[in-house]
Each structure stands twice: as C-alpha cells, then as structure tokens.
C-alpha cells in the first residue's frame, strides 16, 4: 500500500502545534467540504484531509505515526513495521457520530485494529450509506443495477480492512431523485450474533440530454417553426415512453408551457411532462428565404417593441 504523508496533506510542518494543525484543517475543510464546496474532486480531497486530521489531531495517533520517522515519502510503497502499535492505546476517533469513515488502507492498517475494540460485545451493525446514480429511464422501466461498495470489515483475527463488495439492486419503477432505497441487513455485520445494519442508497439521476427533472415532473424544450407557432399545428415530441403527437395552439409564443399530463415519472399520481415552446427562425441564407422575410416585413404591421413605447 501507499504511504500517506499526513503533514503534507494538511500543508503543515512536522513540528506544527495542535493549534496549527487545527487551523490548517479548518481552512482546508472550508475549501473542500463536500457539503459546501464546488471544487472538483472536493469529496476525495476532503476524505484525505479528514483522514490526515483524524491522525494528527489525536495525540496518541500522532505520536505513533511520528514513530514511523520521516524517511517515508508520499505514495511510497509501505508495510507497517512488525512491532507497530506496541505500547500505544488508541481510542475511538472523532467519527463517533455520522458514518463510519471510509479511510485508506494505509489508515486501516495502522489504526484500524484498535478503533473497533470497543465493539466486541453483542451489538447491532451500523447502518451504511451510499449514493447511486442511475439513468432517468430506470424510473420509467425499473432496472437492476450493480453497485460496488467499500466498507470496513473485521476479519477473523479482529483486524479491520476495507473490503469491496458487489450488490445487485432492484431499482423500482417510479423512483425519484433524492429518494432512498433501504436494504435491510446490508450495512455493517452485527457483532456477537446481533443483526446487521441497513444500507441506505441515495438515488440520483444522471443529467439527461433532453429532460430536466423536478420531483416527479419533467420538462423539455420543444422547438417550433414560426408558422407552427403562429397558425397552430400538430407536431411530434419525444417522451420517455415514446414519441407522441402534440397539438400546438395557434398564436403560441416562445416560453409558453404545454402540459402532457401523466407523462412524467410513473406513480400514483404520475408526474407530468412540460413542453417549453421555443420558436426557432429559419435562416435567411437563400434568396427565396430572404424574399419571404421581406414580404413579411412589408405586409405585416408588426412592432415587437410596442410595449417599450418605441
């Protein structure tokens, strides 16, 4: 596994005081906290920062980490020394409330064995949380999705290691963005014969090329030719369940919304599909097209700026 230089991650010297470390962490947390940050990779970056802080803010863990000496470099191949951890007693970290931290293998190999000793008696497994991003179409047809999760697990020797596991999950028809799928017993295993925790999957949709989603309603921009909008027409429109014919009322303007009832995400009741009309002008790039525009300019007494008083 790769060595992690926690001092480098927080941008502090090895001689930094507890206050220096706290203030460096605070600054980075403001910048990269996934709840408040729009930086790319904020989540991954914040995880590294949190892991570094978890170790350096804790006197016992920091002292043990410092014992590794300063001959290691970030990313260097690393194996814990055989006498690692002797004479140290680690207590449970800051992450007592909230999720079990998904720290690196490096962290788990150094501190994982100790963090969990308190859980030895019979105890229900912790609930776990994960996000799943699915195509919008899954909400219309239902689907089966495979997800791969990393979770800390105890092995037979009582050591904690990050294990990957794969789950096949049924995505029910009618699911919406922000809803949770609760999988009973798929969280952390229980200790001493107690039941396992649950896994909560937070569902999100991939951005869709055509449809924008709001709760169970969808909206889509529907381009129209000027004559379709002016005279009324029946035009084709794609919907997630297939192409439909839509009647455009005469005199429609750009921005007008047409509601296709029940064409949104299925359910009781189903959502609606809103078509936002967008009148598109044909290019005047041929003599004939220019003639037609000239004729309109001549024949139609039309001032689009009348409301502006000019």
């Amino acid at each position, binding site marked *: 596994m790769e060595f992690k230089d926690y001092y480098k991650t927080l941008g502090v010297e090895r001689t930094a005081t507890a206050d220096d470390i706290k203030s460096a962490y*605070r600054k980075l*947390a*403001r910048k990269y*906290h996934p*709840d*408040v940050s729009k930086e790319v990779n904020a989540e991954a970056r914040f995880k590294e920062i*949190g892991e570094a802080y978890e170790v350096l803010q804790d006197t016992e863990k920091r002292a043990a980490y410092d014992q590794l000496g300063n001959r290691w470099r970030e990313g260097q191949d690393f194996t814990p020394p055989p006498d690692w951890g002797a004479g140290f007693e680690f207590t449970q970290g*800051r*992450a*007592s*409330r*909230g*999720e*079990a931290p998904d720290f690196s293998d490096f962290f788990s190999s150094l501190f994982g064995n100790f963090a969990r000793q308190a859980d030895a008696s019979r105890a*229900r497994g*912790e*609930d776990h*949380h994960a996000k799943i991003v699915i195509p919008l179409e899954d909400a219309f047809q239902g689907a*089966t999705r495979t997800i791969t999760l990393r979770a800390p697990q105890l092995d037979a020797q009582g050591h904690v290691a990050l294990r990957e*596991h*794969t*789950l*096949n*999950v*049924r995505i*029910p028809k009618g*699911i*919406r963005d*922000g*809803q*949770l*799928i*609760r*999988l*009973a017993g*798929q969280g952390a295993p229980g200790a001493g014969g107690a039941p396992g*925790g*649950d896994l*909560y*999957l*937070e569902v999100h949709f991939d951005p869709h090329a055509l449809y*924008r989603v*709001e709760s169970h309603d969808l*909206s889509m*921009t529907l381009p129209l030719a000027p004559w379709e909008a002016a005279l009324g027409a029946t035009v084709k429109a794609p919907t997630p369940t297939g192409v439909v014919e839509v009647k455009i009322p005469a005199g429609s303007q750009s921005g007008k919304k047409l509601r296709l009832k029940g064409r949104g995400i299925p359910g009781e009741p189903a959502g609606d599909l809103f078509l936002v009309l967008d009148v598109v002008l044909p290019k005047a790039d041929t003599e004939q097209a220019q003639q037609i525009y000239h004729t309109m300019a001549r024949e139609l007494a039309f001032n689009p700026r009348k409301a502006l008083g000019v």
Partner: protein
Amino acid sequence: MDREQELLTGSVIGDEGVLVLEELARACGAEAKWIIELVAVGVLEPQGTDISLWRFRAADLTCARRVARLQRDFDASLDAAAVMLDLLNQIEQLRARLKLAGLDVE
C-alpha cells in the same frame, strides 16, 4: 457466499414519513436525544405530533446526516449548523431553478 447472483429488493423512502425516531438516529449513527434536538431547533419537521408517533422522510435523513457532518467537521454548534443548512438549501434551490431554466451553473 456468492452475493453476485442475489438480487436485492429494498423499500423506498420518499416524501412519506416512514422512519421512526430510533431508526433515524441509528441511520445517523447518533443518539435519539440528538434527533430530538434537531426537531426542537426546527431542522427536522417530522410528521406526527407525539414523539412516539414521529415519522421521518428521506429528506430528513439526508438533512440530519448533513448537519452531523457540518457539526463534526467544523466543530459547529447546532444553531450554526442549522444556519449553514438553510443557506445550503437556498443555494441548491436556486441552482435547481437555474437548471430548470436551462442555465447550467456547473
């Protein structure tokens, strides 16, 4: 154990209150006492009047976990975390409206 063949069906939690106090607390890795505080400051608004009848929705769980992270990672008081949460929610609503208007902000 070959989990890869197994197809899991879960229960969907949405806008209907389904989670009881203890379930929500456990899902947050927190004490029920802390959830009661969140309700008292108005961060969570469960359905049901009496504590034993409280039912929480998906948004409550997402929200409570967010407050837990903000409190833990910034050492924020519950009140400060509640203000952060309000502001974050406002930003999200504005972003969603921009997106609906076809203006991408990313």
